[in-house]
């Protein structure tokens, strides 16, 4: 922090997180996704530059992770005291977390959750008729390494029906949650799979006004990183908000 009233160069300090480009995101009110109708604020968001608390954020240490946290094929069965693998198409999902400036985001927590190979979630509120897999919980965690790289192993989730326009179908997807290093870098999204024919019909992907933005949620088949006789690989890179460099900082006017 500069002393009150000081302006000028603050070498070595970290700047603000850049403004969020809301055009990359769905608006709150998207009537084709019916649940959004009553859950969308109708007033304009109050726009402010982030303060010191918003430019900072929670720190999660790698020591909170269990050894199998990034292996959804095995982590649930093991927690239950069993040793079986989950059923389904075995895949590795990997990629790099960058910020908008292209800098890797190291040592940041990633959480994922998903349905099993039949499209059923292990959740007290999911009553879809597809059966649960006794060896699949559907949750995992990992941290990016020093270069922003991450990976986890899982099975490809199944599509599932949901009540929206009658029975809509979700394309296969994995939910993903990222923290970055600032409170306002927080991001929760979903990754889809290249070539899934349900993608064009999905009302939730359809909340994105920009088709090019939706394309950036599609994980790409990565044959080069497929594990021979074991698992296919998909690549999914994530971009979080960037951080400005600090040059000259002004006191805001009119406040």
């Amino acid at each position, binding site marked *: 922090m500069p002393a009150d009233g000081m302006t000028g160069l603050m070498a070595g300090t970290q700047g603000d997180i850049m403004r969020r480009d809301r055009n*990359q995101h769905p608006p709150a009110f998207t009537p084709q996704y019916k649940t959004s109708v*009553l859950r969308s604020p109708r007033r304009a968001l109050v726009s402010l530059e982030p303060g*010191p*608390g918003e430019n900072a954020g929670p720190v999660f240490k790698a020591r909170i992770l269990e050894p199998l946290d990034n292996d959804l094929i095995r982590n649930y069965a093991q*927690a239950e005291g069993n040793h079986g693998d989950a059923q389904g198409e075995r895949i590795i999902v990997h990629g790099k977390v960058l910020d908008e400036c292209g800098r890797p985001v190291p040592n940041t927590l990633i959480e994922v959750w998903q349905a099993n190979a039949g499209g059923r979630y292990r959740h007290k509120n999911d009553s879809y008729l597809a059966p649960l897999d006794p060896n699949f919980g559907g949750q995992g965690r990992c941290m990016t390494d020093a270069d922003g790289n991450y990976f986890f192993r899982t099975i490809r989730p199944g599509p599932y029906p949901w009540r929206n326009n009658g029975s809509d179908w979700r394309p296969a997807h994995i939910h993903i949650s990222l923290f970055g290093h600032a*409170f306002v870098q927080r991001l929760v*999204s979903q990754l889809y799979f290249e070539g899934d024919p349900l993608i064009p019909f999905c009302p939730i992907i359809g909340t994105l006004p920009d088709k090019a933005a939706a394309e950036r949620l599609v994980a790409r088949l990565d044959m080069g990183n497929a594990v021979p006789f074991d698992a296919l690989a998909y690549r999914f890179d994530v971009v979080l908000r960037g951080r400005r460099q600090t040059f000259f900082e002004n006191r805001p006017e009119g406040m």
Partner: protein
Amino acid sequence: MPVEYLKETPSQTGGPYVHIGTLPAFAGLAVRTQEQPHIIDGAGERIRITGLVIDGSGTPVRDALLELWQADAEGRHNAGDFSGWGRAAASSETGEWMFETVRPGVVPWRDGRPQAPHVSLLIFARGINIHLHTRMYFPEDAAALEADPVLRSVEQAGRRATLVAERTAAADMPSYRFTIHLQGDAETVFFDM
């Protein structure tokens, strides 16, 4: 051509099963059952915050997930062992959620002016396409609330009260009630910071 940056990955709703990845024990999984991320340990005065998220029909949202971020009792972030971060699920029956934490201290704003003590909250849920960001302030701090630079940036003075909790009676620790309205006359102020 202006300088090009990478584009932020688009948000998608956390969906109804957000708990599997974030609070697995709440979802019903027998994993990480000892974790209590709605309780934030640290030095300072213990406080409780309870609340509801209310939809545009007046109905509590029963599948919301809330995340809390705050300074420690001295107004510092990421100092010592204090995480400053918590996570709570709305009850599947009633929509009630609860945090126990320490009363946050004063954090300076960008220009050095003090902010009134507050916690920041994010709301995730089915039907919320990109998480909502709000703040909860404490009702006792009348003078600090009046001077708070963030509250003052809300142009309609009448809306500022949507960010101030109510004090409720509780024997064990100071307790606050914070009702978040997604729509309607009392729509809570949400930020784009």
